[in-house]
Structure formats: C-alpha cells, structure tokens
C-alpha cells in the first residue's frame, strides 16, 4: 500500500508540540527563568554571545533556554535574530589598556606592572564533584580574603607593550587612514582574506573547532612556540564618535576576554629575529576561546611572515571556510533532508555497474536480487 508523503504540515506542527514538552521536562519541577540562566550559567551565556556576535546576555540566555541548552542551536537563534538588525554605526577601537580588570595573568613574566590577578578561574580548582551542590545547597561562603593590598589600577599596560620598549616584538601600527574593516555579516568571505577579516571570522568561529586547530599547532602541525603574553578579563568602555560631535562618547561597558600570544620568529632577510603576536578576543569570560583564537591567528599569518604553509591550521581556506558552526552544523545535518531523487539516480548507476560486472565474470554476482 503506497502512502504518499503527505501530511508534512501536520507532522511539523506536532513536532513543535513534542519539542516544547521535551524542553520543559517534568512540569512538577519549577521552570527555569531566563534570568536564572543569565546569572547561573554565565559561561554558556558568554559563549553564545561571542559566537552569536551579539553582546546581549538576556537574549543569549533566552536562546539557551529555547534551545534546551544546546549552545550551537542557541548561537543559531541569536545569529538569525541579529541578521536583519540595522547597522547604526561603528564604535571606536576598544582600548583594552583601560580595562577594569577582574583577572589578568602573564606566563612570560613573574611580576609585572599592574601585577598578576588570578580572579575567578577554574584553573586551580581540584576537579572533584561537589556533592553539596547536588544536595541543593550552596557551598559555605569562603572567608573573604583581601588578596592585594592595593586596588587594581584603572590603566594597566599590556605585556606586549612592555616588551616593545626593547623592540623585541613586532608592532602593528594602525594602517594609514584607519580603514573600516570588512563586515563579514554583510559581505561574503573572499580569499585571500586580510587579518582583520580573518580575526572577525575566528571571533565568530566554533570554539571546539578553533580549540582543535590550535591544539594541532602544538603537536607539530605548524611550527609554533607560543607563550601566553597575557590573558585578561574585565570590562571595557564602548565608545562611538558621532560625526556631528567630533569627540567620543561612552555608550556602555562590555565584559571581554583578551589574549595576546607571543611567538618566536626566526626573522627574515628584511626583519631581524623578534617575537610575533597572535590575538584573541571574546565576549564575556571565554578564555579557552580567546587563547585558541590567538594561536590560530598566529598560524594563519604564515604567508605574511614567509613561513612555509604545510599544516591545516596555516591554510586560510581550510580554517576560515570550516570555522562557522552554523554553516557546518547546517550542512552536516541537511543530510537528514530527503535525498531520494539523488539516491534513485545512484541506485540505477550501481545496478548498471553490477550488471556490467556480472557480464564480465560470466558468474552471477552473489547477493544480486535484481
């Protein structure tokens, strides 16, 4: 009995209902509020904002709730929301030396102006499941410790700027006229892509993908000898400079994580040996992302620095074409869509080939039931 593939519309509407029920779970349990997600799942919110390319913790939390905690799906929701928002203007470059720091560490110097600030981090926790949380109780508050007797200063020079006093590290002066970078959300990515465009792509790129790419550079797939010049977390002012005013005005603060990776460079005919830099930036507290991004950024500069391009992490087209979770997830999962026309064509082809093979060998091909 042949049943035509009718009823798609009713099936779709029913799947909405089932999805809503799955998302809600047991209705005997209180519903999770968007504000709870925003407050208590901060790192998830930060990742969704970073890869969703919108700094809006409330909408990111909403997306996480709607996506049942699937962060890639939440990123998709936020991206689709932002796609048709009007572009009002560009901000001035962020001045991260003027960040209000919550955390700042350098692996290259034991101590440095501004000091090391550990801040909130899982780095030195012992990864033991905390059964107090399971028992619905909060861990007793830690006695508050005044770690530093001085407050973190409002301006903290970046480590790479300290190295610069000796000219040991490359400088990246602002290009003449400070041209506006390309906006990847308005223009398609073209190759070869300049560094500003690459960084934009990496900033939106999937954290897992960038992490694996970065990891590969540490395991021999490209020659990198990286040091964390600095990782800093804090809030920084966002400024715009309306043309009619002629001076910058502060429109609010955002929390960001910035990483400057310092790499050896053997020098070339024109450039003496010096340290080079890889850069990573993410919204909120996203250290893994910022660090991976800085390693991949440095690897992608192989062409510019005259290094041989041998490894995937150094290949622009490989990295930048596959970093976006929306593109990757969409195309991988589109295989769920019906393909029976193509499959029918392949069926005919395989039958034809098997028939030819059978004629050639004169014996019948085992298992052939045609």
């Amino acid at each position: 009995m042949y049943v035509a593939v009718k009823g798609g519309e009713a099936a779709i509407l029913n799947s909405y209902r089932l999805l809503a029920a799955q998302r809600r779970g047991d209705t005997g349990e209180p519903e999770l509020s968007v504000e709870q997600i925003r407050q208590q799942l901060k790192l998830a919110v930060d990742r969704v904002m970073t890869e969703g390319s919108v700094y809006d913790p409330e909408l990111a939390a909403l997306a996480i709730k709607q996506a049942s905690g699937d962060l890639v799906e939440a990123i998709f929701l936020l991206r689709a929301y932002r796609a048709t928002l009007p572009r009002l203007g560009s901000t001035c470059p962020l001045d991260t030396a003027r960040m209000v720091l919550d955390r700042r560490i350098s692996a290259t110097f034991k101590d440095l102006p501004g000091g090391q600030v550990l801040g909130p981090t899982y780095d030195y926790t012992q990864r033991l499941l905390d059964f107090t949380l399971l028992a619905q109780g909060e861990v007793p508050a830690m006695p508050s410790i005044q770690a530093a007797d001085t407050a973190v200063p409002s301006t903290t020079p970046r480590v790479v700027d300290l190295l610069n006093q000796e000219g040991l590290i490359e400088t990246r002066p602002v290009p003449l006229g400070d041209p506006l970078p390309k906006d990847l959300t308005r223009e398609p990515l073209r190759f070869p892509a300049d560094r500003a465009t690459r960084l934009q792509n990496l900033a939106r790129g999937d954290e897992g993908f960038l992490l694996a790419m970065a990891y590969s550079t540490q395991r021999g797939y490209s020659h990198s000898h990286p040091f964390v010049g600095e990782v800093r977390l804090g809030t920084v002012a966002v400024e715009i400079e309306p043309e009619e005013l002629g001076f910058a005005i502060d429109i609010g603060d955002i929390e960001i994580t910035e990483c400057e990776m310092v790499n050896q460079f053997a020098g070339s005919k024109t450039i003496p040996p010096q340290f080079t830099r890889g850069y990573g930036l993410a919204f909120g507290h996203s250290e893994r992302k910022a660090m991976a991004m800085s390693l991949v950024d440095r690897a992608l500069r192989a062409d510019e620095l005259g290094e041989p391009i041998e490894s995937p992490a150094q290949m622009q087209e490989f990295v930048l074409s596959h970093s976006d979770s929306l593109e990757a997830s969409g195309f991988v999962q589109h295989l769920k869509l019906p393909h029976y026309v193509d499959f029918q064509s392949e069926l005919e082809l395989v039958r034809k080939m098997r028939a030819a093979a059978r004629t050639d060998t004169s014996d019948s091909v085992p298992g052939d039931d045609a």
Partner: protein
Amino acid sequence: MNAPHQPDLMPAAMGLTAEAAPADGHFNFAYLDERTKRMIRRAILKAVAIPGYQVPFGSREMPLPYGWGTGGIQVTASIIGPQDRLKVIDQGSDDTVNAVNIRRFFERTTGVATTTRTREATLIQTRHRIPETPLAEGQVLVYQVPVPEPMQRLEPRETETRTLHGLAEYGLMHVKLYEDIARYGHIATTYDYPVLVNGRYVMSPSPIPKFDNPKMHMNPALQIFGAGREKRIYAVPPYTPVESLGFEDHPFEVQRWDAACALCGATDSFLDEVITDDQGTRMHVCSDSDYCQERQSAKQGDAPLVAGAAEAP
C-alpha cells in the same frame, strides 16, 4: 520563526492552492529587510548578465539552517511580490517536510497565494528537481544549491577554481569524466551533472538528476540558483543554451526506466522507487507529484493503475 508555538498556524487544508492571506506583521515583507533585498537583487542582475558565473553575495543567517535552502529562500524573498503565486517543491513534491516548511515561511512572512500546480505558479522554489511540466515565459525557477562550485570535489580551494573559471580552463572536469569512462565504460555521474552555460561557464545545476539537465537548455523561464552557505548566486536567463558535458564518442545521456509510474502510467517522467512491504517489493512512482496528479485527474474514469506495476523483489 524561532518560537516553537504557533497557535495561529493551523494545518492548512491540503488543497492544491491557498489564497493570499494577511502576513505576520512582526516581520518585513518576505522577512528580509529592504536593503538586504536590494543587495541580493543586484547580485541577481549581475548573475543574469553573466550566465553561469557565480556572483558572491552577502548571504544572511536565515531563520532556517544553512544547507536547508537558505540561498533559494533569500533569492525568493528578494524577488517575490504580493501578486506572485508561489510553489515550493523538494524532490519534486510539494508535500515533503522541507518544502512544506519553506512554503509556510513565505505564507507567514508575505501572505502571498501558493499553489502546487506548476502551470499556475509565477515563482517556483525547488530542491533537486525541475518540474516535468514545461515552464513558460514569465515564470521564475529558484534552485536551492548546496555546492555552487562544480569543481569543488576536484579542487577544494576557491582561489584556484576562481582562476580556472576566469581562464575557462575546464580540463580538470573533462579528465574526471574521462576517468569514469576509462574505469566503468560510461560517465558515472548521475546527479549534479556539470553543464556549460552559454558556451562559457561550467556550472553546477545543483543536485538535480541528470534526467532534468536537458530541461535547462533554452528554457523560456528564468532560472536563478542560490547558495546561502557558500554565499553565491548564479543564473541562466531565458532561452540560454545549456549543454551537459560529454564526449563525441561518449555523449551525455539521461537515465531511463523499464517501469511506468504505478499511479499515472507515465513513462516520460523521473520515477522514484517506493518499497511497499518487508520483502522489499517495489513500485515506481512519479517524483513530480503535481505532474502525477494532473495525469491522474485527466484519466479519471479510466481503470485505476495502482495495482499494475509493483515488482517482485
């Protein structure tokens, strides 16, 4: 389209057409903002002016996933007007879930009338098929394209393929087809079979079966191809020569079936095999559901053909 609850969207009657209805006022007409539509229309104009050439465009993140028709949706959204009558098919059928979903998207954001009848549609968005009913002047066929670059599987670097297109250097593609012949005795490409457009650009026809390729040649309708994830638009204007690649001694040929459609008896349409029981009994049915239904209606009064063509495994 993000919210899973749509109490206002009850299943429409499964009739053949739906009249224009008020659009959801929360969105701009056809979802995209007018500046984006203008950008896409410019890309379409360029694509029409250079048949078969892939025009890069600022593809947006749509409320449907990349790979699920976002290129076709953006093209349709940019050219659809309130007077249009839209048809959406996937695998030739109006009733597959993805076609239903995309049609609902446009019903909701434009309120335009929809139809399943190829003849009545002014705008047809398709995935993987060209309708069997010949298209007419004034109709627009919008293809959803997963991989716009016909040579991507042979050379994944876009910087390289761009140069090859610029030089019209298509030896790579001919070598691939030749290797098929050397290995199998025939060209082993059955869908997404490369075509040469207007004697200049080699183009991916999108994964339509090669059975459909001849329909592209000198077609009176405008054919536009949208690849959202890969951010490319290309086009075949009306009455443009489209030649499927081949060799003099191994010319291009389309697949043929020994069977006829079990529902309408057609022998000239693309047939899908349908497995009808646990023993693998198969029957063949038109992939183009509108074509099949039209033929069945025309035959009303004749003996039904349903029992006829099932084959033993």
